[in-house]
């Protein structure tokens, strides 16, 4: 006889899902430290996550830099402070825009890809086949992809930041005629170690989040091909939501560190 729900059937299902996800994360972290490491698979996933996202990161980075600079100009121009544009843009890019936008782009591109791939493997019982073949699916499928996103999102963030910086420079150059040397000097002069460190921490956390949530969405897919679509969609939506929540948390932590 089935037990009565603790709160309600829906809330119980959500809470059970939270537990399953936390257990999944724990299993992934434990498997990460154990052999075998599947280095070739990790490299393959790094290629899929990193290299195949470069064109998208380039386009979004260039546009983000140019648009942010263009939109910031009127506010600074009203104070006659357009010379502060390089430092403003650099600070905004390093502290928030580059990690956040890169993570959102990867969540859309990589998260949906992993969710759909693992979802289809789940509904076609390939994951069970791996288990039968004495291959740990978490080790082979989840850990490799999570490591790949955790390493490649920071790399893409750095690349995104550089391209956005270039886009900002093109915009400033066309309006104010600022030289490259002056732009770089003005821009990087306002940065400190904590800014760069917080950007790296953000990118690592976002990368891990995208990988683990996308894999979770994939391996928890059900109901056939419809479930694959839901897994891909869930990977994107949940990753983005998690990224924003984590952004708030990280900002709070960084502020605390700054005040020490």
């Amino acid at each position, binding site marked *: 006889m089935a037990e009565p729900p603790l709160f309600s059937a829906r809330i119980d299902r959500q809470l*059970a899902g*939270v*537990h399953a996800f*936390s257990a999944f994360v724990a299993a992934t972290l434990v498997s990460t430290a154990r052999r075998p490491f599947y280095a070739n698979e990790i490299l393959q996933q790094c290629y899929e996550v990193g290299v195949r996202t470069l064109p998208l990161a380039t386009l979004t980075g260039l546009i983000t830099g140019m648009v942010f600079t263009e939109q910031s100009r009127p506010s600074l121009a009203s104070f006659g402070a357009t010379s502060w544009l390089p430092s403003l843009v650099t600070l905004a890019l390093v502290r928030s825009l580059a990690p956040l936008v890169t993570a959102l782009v990867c969540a859309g591109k990589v998260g949906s890809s992993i969710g759909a791939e693992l979802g289809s493997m789940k509904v076609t019982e390939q994951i069970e086949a791996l288990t039968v073949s004495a291959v740990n699916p978490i080790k082979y499928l989840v850990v490799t992809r999570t490591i790949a996103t955790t390493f490649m999102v920071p790399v893409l963030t750095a690349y995104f930041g550089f391209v956005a910086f270039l886009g900002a420079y093109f915009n400033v150059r066309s309006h104010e005629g600022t030289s490259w040397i002056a732009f770089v000097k003005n821009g990087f002069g306002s940065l400190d170690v904590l800014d760069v460190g917080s950007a790296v921490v953000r990118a690592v956390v976002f990368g891990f989040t995208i990988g683990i949530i996308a894999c979770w969405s994939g391996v928890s897919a059900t109901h056939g091909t419809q479930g694959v679509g839901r897994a891909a969609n869930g990977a994107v939506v949940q990753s983005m939501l998690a990224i924003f929540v984590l952004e708030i948390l990280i900002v709070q932590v960084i502020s605390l560190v700054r*005040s020490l």
Partner: protein
Amino acid sequence: MSSNSPRRNVLLGLFVTLGAIIVFAALFSIGTLRESLRSRIPVTSTFEEVKGLKPGDAVWYAGVTVGTVKRVSFEDGVGQVRVELRIDEKAASHIPSDALARIGSDSLIGNTIVVLYDGHEAAGPLEAGAHLEAGTSVSPEAVLAKFQESNENLLVITSNLREITTRLMDEESSVGRLISDKDLYDSIVLSVANLQTASANAQQLTSDAATFTAELNAEGNLPHDLVTDQSIHKSLQASTQSLEEATASASALLKTLEEDVARKDTPAGVLLKSEGAGEDLEATLESLNQSSQLLEEDLEALQHNFLLRRYFKKRAKEAEKERKKAEGGQP
């Protein structure tokens, strides 16, 4: 309840969710907690205007943030604004209790803050419950007004300067003529050159006078001896005395001569006063004149005498020879 029962999974999920919420809450409240745990003392001040000051704004002392604004409220029936501050206890020990408070800004267009300044060390450190006197606030508007006043003064100065330069450049004015008239300039240059020459001459004259005076004062010279030599002085004294005696003798002689001239029985009186003696003297002079003419004729006749003619011819020839010789020697 089995280890894989749905109820256990739900409870674990609830535990994880609660744990996540606690972590969130802790992270967001830790900043506030730190602020509330910080030891601070209450201080008040009263202002006529606070320029939008609000709770949470910073309090500065010597450019360091030493506290925050706790509350801003109107004082009862006074029409002034009471501002309650919270000052860090550690910082308060460095702030004199007679420090002044004013409303300021952390930059030209920045946030409104309370600035503590001045005060004397002898007054002791700031203590809880102290009331700080309000000082004079320097607002950006006041600074801009001062700038405006300075600008107006600058405008007047530049206007005056322009008028002065215009007048200077006017060719009819004295300075303008001096600047533009070349003849006047040359004349001034010439005058200056003459002045320089006159000055040089005067200098030379002064130098010569100094040299002359030095020479006069040199030992052995007459002026020096006159002034310094006692024997010359005595000699001069003696000469003067002799001169006085000679003068006295001459006076006596002249007196005697005048008396003799006045008398007709003296030779001088006869010569100067007697008419007959004058006529005789005139006749004598006339006879002498006639005798001289006769003697000249006799001498002329004597030159033509055959005894003496040869001698005179010889003298004439020698004289002619001497004359030619003198003419031939000249170039």
